[in-house]
């Protein structure tokens, strides 16, 4: 039975249900225990499962990530909360050199079923060290899967899949989405990794957007509809492996592609999708594809500057208009 709950509740419910189902699942991170995490993602779970399974850690990102690897190899299913994605830079070796690789180099003798959860993206003046969205690094790393839900329903279905997956999964939580509400089934369900969702159908142009950019794009699509422009919005949901087929189908229909991407442009997910589409369906593109990303700068603190560098719904709409006006 579905009911309207917040993103963060859906995420929590997914974790709770998996912890009830599978005693090998546990959560570790700074403040995940009695305090219930930085954004209250694990609120109440410690009361239910105890401190053995909601393990507060020191500020030791490398050890958190590496301890998760060791535990996962032994049959546990750790969920390691690294708080902000920005802090994962301290744990890249364990994430990308160890978690991602040990199954392969051991020739399949070990597997590393774990989830690294990280909050990502813009919020209010989080500034240079707390606004990261460099998940393209994880996408670039063989052995990792990357998930970025945009709705409460996806948050729940994807965390469950991430936990059940036998390989390491990066699960990204966009800070602007925690309080967004949506319909979510009460019972456990899994959204398969690697499957996109068409969040809005349209005929004139395909937007590929993830995380908070999905909502921005839907808002823009609404406005553009009034101008007679019909936009299709696709949310890959899983960024690695991404659902190329759904994207190609859409582009073949609309003939136009805009990627709306919160990460940076160079070697980012937007560039990846554009490259993928032209390599595989250039003939179906009526105009050059475009991308709207965060400007290539360290993130400034002050709101006017911060707002200036990020995408927003108006900018998405403007990018669509510009693209459709460009030479065919």
């Amino acid at each position: 039975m579905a009911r309207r709950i917040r993103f963060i509740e859906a995420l929590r419910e997914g974790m709770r249900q998996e912890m009830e189902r599978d005693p090998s699942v546990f959560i570790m991170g700074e403040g995940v225990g009695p305090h219930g995490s930085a954004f209250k993602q694990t609120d109440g779970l410690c009361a239910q499962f105890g401190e053995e399974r909601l393990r507060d850690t020191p500020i030791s990102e490398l050890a958190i990530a590496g301890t998760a690897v060791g535990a996962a190899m032994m049959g546990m299913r750790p969920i390691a909360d690294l708080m902000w994605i920005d802090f994962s830079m301290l744990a890249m070796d364990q994430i990308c050199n160890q978690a991602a690789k040990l199954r392969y180099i051991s020739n399949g003798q070990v597997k590393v079923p774990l989830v690294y959860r990280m909050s990502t993206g813009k919020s209010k003046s989080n500034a240079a060290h707390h606004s990261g969205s460099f998940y393209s690094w994880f996408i670039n790393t063989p052995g990792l899967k990357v998930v970025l839900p945009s709705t409460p329903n996806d948050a729940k279905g994807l965390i469950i899949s991430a936990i059940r997956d036998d390989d390491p999964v990066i699960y990204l939580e966009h800070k602007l989405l925690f309080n967004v509400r949506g319909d979510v089934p009460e019972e456990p369900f899994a959204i398969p990794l690697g499957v996109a969702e068409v969040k809005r159908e349209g005929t004139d142009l395909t937007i590929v957007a993830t995380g908070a950019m999905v909502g921005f794009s839907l808002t823009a699509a609404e406005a553009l509809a009034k101008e007679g422009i019909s936009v299709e919005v696709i949310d890959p949901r899983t960024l690695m492996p991404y659902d190329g087929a759904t994207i190609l189908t859409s582009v073949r229909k609309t003939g136009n592609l805009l990627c709306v991407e919160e990460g940076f442009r160079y070697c980012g997910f937007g560039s990846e999708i554009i490259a993928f589409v032209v390599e595989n369906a250039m003939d179906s593109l009526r105009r050059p594809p475009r991308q709207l990303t965060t400007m290539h700068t360290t993130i400034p603190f002050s709101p006017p500057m911060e707002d200036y560098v990020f995408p927003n719904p108006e900018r998405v709409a403007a990018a669509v208009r510009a693209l459709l006006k460009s030479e065919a």
Partner: protein
Amino acid sequence: MDNAMKVRLLETMLNIRKAELQLAILYKNGKVPCAAHLYEGQEAIAAGVCAQLRVDDCLTSTHRGHGHCIAKGMPMKEMIAEVCARKTGCCGGKGGTMHLFKPDIGVMGTIGIVGAGIPVATGIALAMKMQKTDRVAVSFFGDGAANNGAFHESLNLASVWKLPVIFVCENNRYATSVAVWRSTSVEKIGDRAASYSIPGVTVDGNCVDEVYAATEAALSRARTGQGPTLIEAVTYRVRGHYEGDDAAYRKQGELTEAREHDPIEYWKQKLIEDGVLREEDFAALAAKAEAEAEEAAAFAVDSPFPAPEEALILTAQI
């Protein structure tokens, strides 16, 4: 320590306290665009350490760095305006509460990543040594940071290279919601100095005289090429981790007890006992600090925001 210094320490602590309390108000009034980590209750550490630094000595600090900036000589206006995201702030609004700089007086950055300032300070000290100066670098960081790899690698390197750096660990008993004993395997963080063959002391961080004395010793070592020192200053974080945190995780009575050991109150009493200060002198100093903080807050609020496009200045072509 002469009387002038005694009073100066008090003044610095008052300046920090009043500035932070202004920020708390500004935050409540929506003038600070994000959660800020205030330094109330830890003032004796910034004051006791920085009082002995020269203007060409340098520091790095953390997410909880307002106090260190004030103590090192940053005008309140520039600090508060930055926290309020104004163009007149010390970083023109680019940095914000966790990223304060003023290199011409040695504020080489408060840094938002826990522990990250420790190697940076080590590098500053390396430059000071290679440039054959007797300047000194100070790294302020929390108890939580002492469990991070950056701490270990930096202290080892600084010791091996005998760098002029003082590592000041402010043990305020919490790292976010996690009490220090739940995450830290050693009773006294100062004892970790032994792992690096450097002196380590643990002092009461609410007693500015203790902090001062420990710093004095560390400074003289650093200036004379004898290498780094680790100072653990034990204190208590009387506010939440950030403004808005209700800190429900505190132990019963803990806060009240800490409030009774207020660093400003302690020093005030001491100076009165020593005959250096009268109640009314204190009131005057407090009023002066408060006025300055209010003025700084008004300055900040009256200051313009940076223009949006300023975001792209200094971004070079890349």
